[in-house]
């Protein structure tokens, strides 16, 4: 490893996020309205268009997880009657709420004026906002996003979602904001979204190089930060992704491996595709288990849950509502099992991966179901080694470091043994 040096893009992202949380902390005194919504299928351009501030509970939960707060939050939620099997994002959020709703920068988060429920593949979202509705006593607007059961988006599906946007969601948001959507501005925002998306895809696809200049999972979760949260469709996001792209271009030129918390990885020994979210409570430790073995994640499905762009989709300013509909329906969480398998298979082949790993989350019922089938099918189709580990999103009780390290070491050695034979 070389010494860890913070990239400019990281600083930029940090400033952007801090500024956003500062805006949230001042929201009430500034007279800004706040909308809670989810990452998959988020309608950030619309919210920004109307001057509404988004809060994303999953992001709060994972940030709390990384700051070591979720153990206590989950305990509080369980004391309040939420069972052990409930999604730990939900419990962390409820616990945070009961503990004063302090955000990741230490400033309090404002209460929501509206809950915008974009139902995109995760059925827990429905229950989550039912709980928040009871806590906050505020209106809920639901955007029902049809599941891609047949593995494609049809015109009636598109019309159905765009119709809900036009007839239900936008009127509710306009009422809250006290003004109408500025469609010229929306088109400009969507054009900015597409520019940032181009750069994000370029960055993620840089992992096709050998050595990969990025880690598309542990590093990837930072790269998706701005576009998955409050910044899609902003000049901030466009500038961030340009900066990031330039930095990665430099790494490529220099033949450098990915950045890790302990500096640049010197030797890429394993190229891995990962399915499933990372563990947040032991994020650094989990990451070290990979880079410590010379393993680089070259593609991951988790970095597509808030938008799947590397199959060609870009927000299209010429048809604002339809493109938002396509975005929502195209998120990774909304894909059916055969499509998820096909996407992972493509990643394994396109990124010349040595194998693939599934990190399965017990409490994430909608996402973890079928992962063993995915494992078997990918092994069969690609002939590459599959690995399966279990941990959790933000419940520290379900991250057994010794066991996971043991599995990962075994897995990497299995990949090596198999490679040696072929």
């Amino acid at each position: 490893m070389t010494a860890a040096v913070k990239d400019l893009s990281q600083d930029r992202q940090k400033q952007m996020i801090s500024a956003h949380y500062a805006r949230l902390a001042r929201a009430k005194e500034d007279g800004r309205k706040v909308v809670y919504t989810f990452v998959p299928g988020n309608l950030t351009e619309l919210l920004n268009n109307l001057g509404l501030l988004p809060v994303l509970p999953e992001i709060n939960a994972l940030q709390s997880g990384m700051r070591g707060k979720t153990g206590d939050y989950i305990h509080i939620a369980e004391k309040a009657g939420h069972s052990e099997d409930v999604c730990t994002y939900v419990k962390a959020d409820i616990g945070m709420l009961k503990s004063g709703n302090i955000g990741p920068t230490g400033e309090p988060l404002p209460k929501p004026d509206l809950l915008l429920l974009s139902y995109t593949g995760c059925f827990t979202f429905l229950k989550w906002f039912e709980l928040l509705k009871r806590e906050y006593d505020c209106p809920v607007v639901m955007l029902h996003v049809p599941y891609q059961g047949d593995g494609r988006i049809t015109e009636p599906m598109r019309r159905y979602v765009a119709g809900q946007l036009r007839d239900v969601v936008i009127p509710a948001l306009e009422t809250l904001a006290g003004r109408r959507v500025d469609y010229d501005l929306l088109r400009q925002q969507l054009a900015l979204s597409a520019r940032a998306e181009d750069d994000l895809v370029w960055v993620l696809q840089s992992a096709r190089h050998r050595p990969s200049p990025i880690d598309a999972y542990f590093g990837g979760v930072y790269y998706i930060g701005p576009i998955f949260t409050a910044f899609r469709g902003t000049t901030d996001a466009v500038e961030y992704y340009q900066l990031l792209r330039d930095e990665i271009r430099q790494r490529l030129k220099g033949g450098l491996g990915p950045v890790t918390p302990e500096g640049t990885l010197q030797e890429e020994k394993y190229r891995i595709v990962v399915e499933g979210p990372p563990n947040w409570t032991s994020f650094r430790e989990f990451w070290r288990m990979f880079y410590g073995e010379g393993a680089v994640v070259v593609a991951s499905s988790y970095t597509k849950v808030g938008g799947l762009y590397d199959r060609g989709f870009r927000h299209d300013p010429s048809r604002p509502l339809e493109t938002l509909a396509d975005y929502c329906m195209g998120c990774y969480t909304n894909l059916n099992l055969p499509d998820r398998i096909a996407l992972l298979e493509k990643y394994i082949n396109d990124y010349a991966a040595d194998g693939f790993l599934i990190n399965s989350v017990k409490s994430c019922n909608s996402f973890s179901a079928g992962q063993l089938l995915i494992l078997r099918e990918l092994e069969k189709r690609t002939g590459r080694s599959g690995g399966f580990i279990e941990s959790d999103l933000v419940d520290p009780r379900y991250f057994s470091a010794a066991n996971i390290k043991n599995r990962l070491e075994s897995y990497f050695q299995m990949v090596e043994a198999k490679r040696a034979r072929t």
Partner: protein
Amino acid sequence: MDCFVGIDLGSTTTKAVIVDTRGRIVGRGITNSRSNYDVAAQVARNEAFTNARFDMLGRALREEGGLGDAGPAFEAALAAAYRHECFLGQLQRLENHCRRDLESDRYTHDRRAMGHALEVILAGIRHDAAAVYGGGTAARSDFFRDLAGASYTEHAAHVAREGGPAFDRLVGLFDRNIIPVENEPETRGFAQLLRSALDRVPLSLAQRRDAVAGLLARVAEADLREVSAVGTGYGRVRLPFPKENIRSEILCHGLGAHLMFPRTRTVLDIGGQDTKAIQVDEHGVVTSFQMNDRCAAGCGRYLGYIADEMNIGLHELGPLALGARRRIKINSTCTVFAGAEFRDRLAAGQAREDIVAGLHRAIILRAMSLLARSGGIRNEFTFTGGVGRNQAAVKALHEVAQDNYGSLTINIAPDSIYTGAIGAATFALQGSARN
């Protein structure tokens, strides 16, 4: 002789295996892992080297000993006498620790009585050991702690009944002092121990020792050169080996099973605190695996816990279950809940052997779920790990595997507990050949 060593540091036992340049197993050693992996590895390794010398001795006796039909009996007697000698060495160290302990303030009021009781107990243990190593009694375990502990408890109970110090007080003395004894490896070398052992060989056989004296000296002095060693198992990070000499137990078990049964395609290993389902290819290379992740339910400790609950030895559990007449379904694979279920069913009047058979079946059903996750069972199917020694578990495995996957060849080697260490030793040999 060039030796390649594999050490498997398991949660319950530590195993060492030595292979020669042709990959032939020439030595095995096993000890309980205790809380000190360093010592456990050293003890198992020393035992494997001792075993390797006995292997050399056996071959030499067969080839040039001139003992004819008496050769095997002489070899067996000498090996037993050697183990007896090691046992007595450890017992002496136990006595030394206990005597030092008796000097402490804890025994101000009953030092004399305790000292006398200790003498009686140790005499009893020596008497029992003579019977075990003389072939008169079957050994319950290979480990000093178990052998000496069982014997100590028995004699302490007798002493207490006869008006000596209280049983708890006597057992407390053993419990405090067995730990340092386990953590002190044998200091005498092979040659010295062999000489002492020879003196213990029965007279009729000892008369032949002159005929083989030169041969014994040659074996004792033979240069066994450790060329390379590979470590595996839970405690592998404790081994002072470079990273490339540390292998995961998954790979070692896969290769070990392949070496023992070359047609193996699926391996099930039930160890003390984990269960592994492993798929291997025709070369013994692992292609897929699953392990219990968040919970150790259904592992070897499950049976250990039940044995403790029933106040019987672990080795008695299997034979008891084989006497079952009815199949009872135990729902829980949680070790603690299974204990509760056991007591509940006993209270309901169900037979102990039937319940215990149900518990064995519950473990195997749990393993089946893991096997299904790893890709199912492919023929041939090899069962390894300490639980493979339990005949009731083996019987349940046959039944459940047949029900789920039809007719299969199920391999269980008598020394399957060494599977991981065999794989590790072979990795050491292969690594050395590559370099």
